[in-house]
């Protein structure tokens, strides 16, 4: 039988029918085989193989196979010419007891049909063998008694035979069938195979000798000796050395030989009556079968445990080797002894015999600062307050203290008392060092960040102040520019009015002169007075116009701003930033050479600045179209020798400068869009300050606008 014969819920009809047929054939065969051993009571034999088959089928499969069983049984009984009523009775009882047994064993006892544990064997024996079969034997016996019209005193015998037969089925046939329904271990070593062959050989020889009279054994020994006990070593050998398959097979072979011997009235059980022979044979088979099942179950269980243990050990070893953890097991927390794995010793740098694996020795290895923490945490964990999970320093044999991470779990008994604790340690020294390093670097970084932040804040403040002062300087420059512009406009107005006045005075003078000339002629000619009056009026109007012009000129030319003594360098310095900005705008390189003697002048500072600004703008205009040279402007203040200070504005315009005396006049300009007041204003300002203005060509190219101012002693010189 194979596991694939198991019917599952999704089996189709065809496989179900095939299975039923198969089971039916098995039951049929079992009944006929049983009949072979018929003794006085027809199908009721000591050897009820049918029950074994039906029970195995129902345990292995579910109750779907019952139809097949019924058909098989009834067919067999029919072949054996057993009356219908008896057939029905026997079939019914058989099916009912086996169904009940299968259901109870599987559902309530979790029966493992491999019979691998003693509890399985005992369950089978007790539930099926002693309880269910007992009741079914009673019912069957009563039924048979009634049907066979047997006498009352035969009931007991009937019952005994029936029950004993059922036990054969339960304890010999069904275990064999159930065990062989599971795959057999085929991968045996060569020695095991030889041993197995030897076992069967010896079994066969023994069976031959005991049951078949080989070696004429009965002629040399007392016939009364229980030679059958010689099988028990074989059974023990099969059970101890090999699993259930072999053990049950040995029992079946034994049983077969016993039946044959019984049938042929030979063997160790044939002394005494037929019944006694039956009973002895039955006892022998049942005993050997039960014994073999129990022994093999025990051995199998032990083997399985050993395998599991081995696997568990292997797993543990692999795990511990793989994880690099040192394991510890404090099997009795009241005791000092702790089991340490080899890795544990390794982590501490000791050999296993160099140090005692105790809690005390662990404490001696522990860093004094960590001992208290460890003990507190341990106690808390044992008392159920928190986990045991701690970083501690342990002194390695040669390397000194190293960081380890220890963890563990306590096990408590039913009264919640801690009795055992187990855990692991792992070397975390590198990790800890890395953590410390990280912490250190972190704090260093934080410190650096702080410093940098301070620095940045400082720079920020400085920048802010710088921006503020630049804004202030810019505002000042703007102010100065506005003032200069205003001044320039004012000066232009003044200069314009002066020039206009001068230009208008000439024609007015002519009007007056010609009017007077006409009056002289009119007086001489003694002509009409009205004409004379008109001409006189013309002349007066012209004179009045002249006065008006003078008053306007006078108003617009008012000298705004007072003169005061200043350092000439300061005057230029105050203008420097404005000039520098303007120079940059026009891509001009500006160079200011200050007075080395730090001289003073008495000037209207704003007017002088306006003057220099004008000359500067003229210089820039002159270099506007420079292609040969880069644009350079020099402002030079020179007070060497003399009582004058010379201020020059030197440009390097591409073209040779050609002086034209009209340049200094009002309304002269080389540019059509300009008014042409610049140099005229400059001249006026310079003359107003008692200086001289001149415009000369440089030796190579460009021009120099130069003006002088009278020097005055500085306030500190007095």
């Amino acid at each position, binding site marked *: 039988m194979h596991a694939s014969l198991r019917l599952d819920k999704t089996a189709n009809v065809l496989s179900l029918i095939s299975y039923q047929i198969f089971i039916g054939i098995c039951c049929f065969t079992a009944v006929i085989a049983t009949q072979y051993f018929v003794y006085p009571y027809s199908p009721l034999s000591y050897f009820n193989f049918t029950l074994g088959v039906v029970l195995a089928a129902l345990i292995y499969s579910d109750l779907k196979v019952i139809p097949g069983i019924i058909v098989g049984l009834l067919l067999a009984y029919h072949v054996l010419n057993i009356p219908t009523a008896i057939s029905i009775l026997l079939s019914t009882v058989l099916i009912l007891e086996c169904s009940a047994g299968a259901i109870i064993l599987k559902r309530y006892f979790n029966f493992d049909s491999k019979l691998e544990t003693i509890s399985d064997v005992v369950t089978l024996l007790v539930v099926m063998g002693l309880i269910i079969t007992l009741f079914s034997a009673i019912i069957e016996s009563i039924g048979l008694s009634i049907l066979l019209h047997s006498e009352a005193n035969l009931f007991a015998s009937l019952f005994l035979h029936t029950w004993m037969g059922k036990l054969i089925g339960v304890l010999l046939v069904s275990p064999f069938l159930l065990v062989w329904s599971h795959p057999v271990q085929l991968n045996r070593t060569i020695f095991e195979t030889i041993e197995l062959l030897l076992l069967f050989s010896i079994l066969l020889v023994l069976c031959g000798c005991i049951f078949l009279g080989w070696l004429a054994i009965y002629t040399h020994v007392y016939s009364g000796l229980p030679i059958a006990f010689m099988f028990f070593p074989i059974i023990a050998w099969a059970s101890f050395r090999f699993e259930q398959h072999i053990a049950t097979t040995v029992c079946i072979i034994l049983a077969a030989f016993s039946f044959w011997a019984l049938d042929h009235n030979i063997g160790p059980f044939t002394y005494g009556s037929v019944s006694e022979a039956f009973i002895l044979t039955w006892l022998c088979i049942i005993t050997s079968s039960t014994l073999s099942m129990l022994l093999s179950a025990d051995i199998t269980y032990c083997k399985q445990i050993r395998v599991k243990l081995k696997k568990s050990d292997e797993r543990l070893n692999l795990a511990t080797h793989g994880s690099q953890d040192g394991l510890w097991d404090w099997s009795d927390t009241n005791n000092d002894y702790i089991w340490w794995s080899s890795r544990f010793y390794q982590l501490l740098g000791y050999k296993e015999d160099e140090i005692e694996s105790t809690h005390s020795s662990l404490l001696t290895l522990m860093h004094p600062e960590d001992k208290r923490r460890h003990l507190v945490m341990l106690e808390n964990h044992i008392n159920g307050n928190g986990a045991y999970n701690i970083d501690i320093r342990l002194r390695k044999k040669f390397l000194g203290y190293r960081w380890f991470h220890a963890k563990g779990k306590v096990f408590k008994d039913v009264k919640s008392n801690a009795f055992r604790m187990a855990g692991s340690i792992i070397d975390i020294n590198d990790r800890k060092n890395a953590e410390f390093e990280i912490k250190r670097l972190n704090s260093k970084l934080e410190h650096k960040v702080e410093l940098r932040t301070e620095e940045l804040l400082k720079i920020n403040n400085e920048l802010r102040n710088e921006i503020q002062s630049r804004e202030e300087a810019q505002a000042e420059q703007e102010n100065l520019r506005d003032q200069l512009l205003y001044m320039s406009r004012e000066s232009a107005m003044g200069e314009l009015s002066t020039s206009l006045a001068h230009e208008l005075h000439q024609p007015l*003078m002519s009007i007056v*002169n010609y009017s007077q*000339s006409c009056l*002289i002629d009119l007086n001489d000619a003694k002509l009409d007075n009205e004409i004379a009056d008109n001409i006189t009026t013309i002349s007066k109007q012209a004179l009045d116009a002249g006065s008006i012009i003078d008053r306007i000129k006078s108003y617009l030319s008012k000298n705004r701003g007072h003169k005061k003594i200043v350092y000439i360098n300061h005057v230029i310095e105050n203008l420097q930033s404005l000039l520098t900005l303007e120079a940059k705008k026009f891509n001009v390189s500006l160079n200011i050479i200050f007075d080395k003697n730090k001289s003073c002048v008495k000037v209207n500072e704003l007017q002088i600045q306006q003057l220099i600004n004008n000359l500067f703008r003229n210089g820039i205009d002159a270099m506007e179209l420079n292609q040969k040279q880069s644009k350079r402007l020099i402002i030079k203040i020179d007070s060497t020798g003399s009582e004058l200070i010379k201020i020059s504005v030197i440009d390097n315009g591409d073209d040779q400068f050609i002086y034209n005396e009209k340049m200094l006049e009002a309304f002269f300009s080389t540019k059509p869009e300009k008014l042409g007041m610049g140099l005229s204003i400059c001249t006026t300002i310079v003359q107003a300050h008692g200086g001289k203005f001149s415009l000369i060509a440089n030796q190579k190219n460009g021009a120099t606008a130069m003006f002088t101012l009278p020097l005055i002693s500085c306030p500190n010189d007095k």
Partner: protein
Amino acid sequence: MATKVYILDDDRIVAHSLSQILRKSGFDVHSFKSADECINHCDNESIGYLLLDHKMPDMTGIQIQKILVERKSQLKIIFITAMGKEIESAALSMGAIKVFVKPFDPNDLVDLLKQDTHVDRCNEAV
């Protein structure tokens, strides 16, 4: 003999109108066309009056006055200029007898010339 009056003014119309009045007032008027002509003509023996404008293209009136003073010219200089106030002190300090600011009443000039001539003649007579 009529008193000699020389006029130097870059404005031709002003010079012409002034010389017309002076001529009609009985003076012997001569207009110079340029400062060079004036300087070349006026030597230390020239007598009379020179009506001098100040703002002129070649040379200013003050410059011309300076040259004439250096030559010890006997010409009496009267400034006739639109920039009267600005040069008045310089002109008078160098010996000019009057600075007229344009436009002025030419009768004032005529009266001054006549008066000055009369004083001179009286002094000569004495």
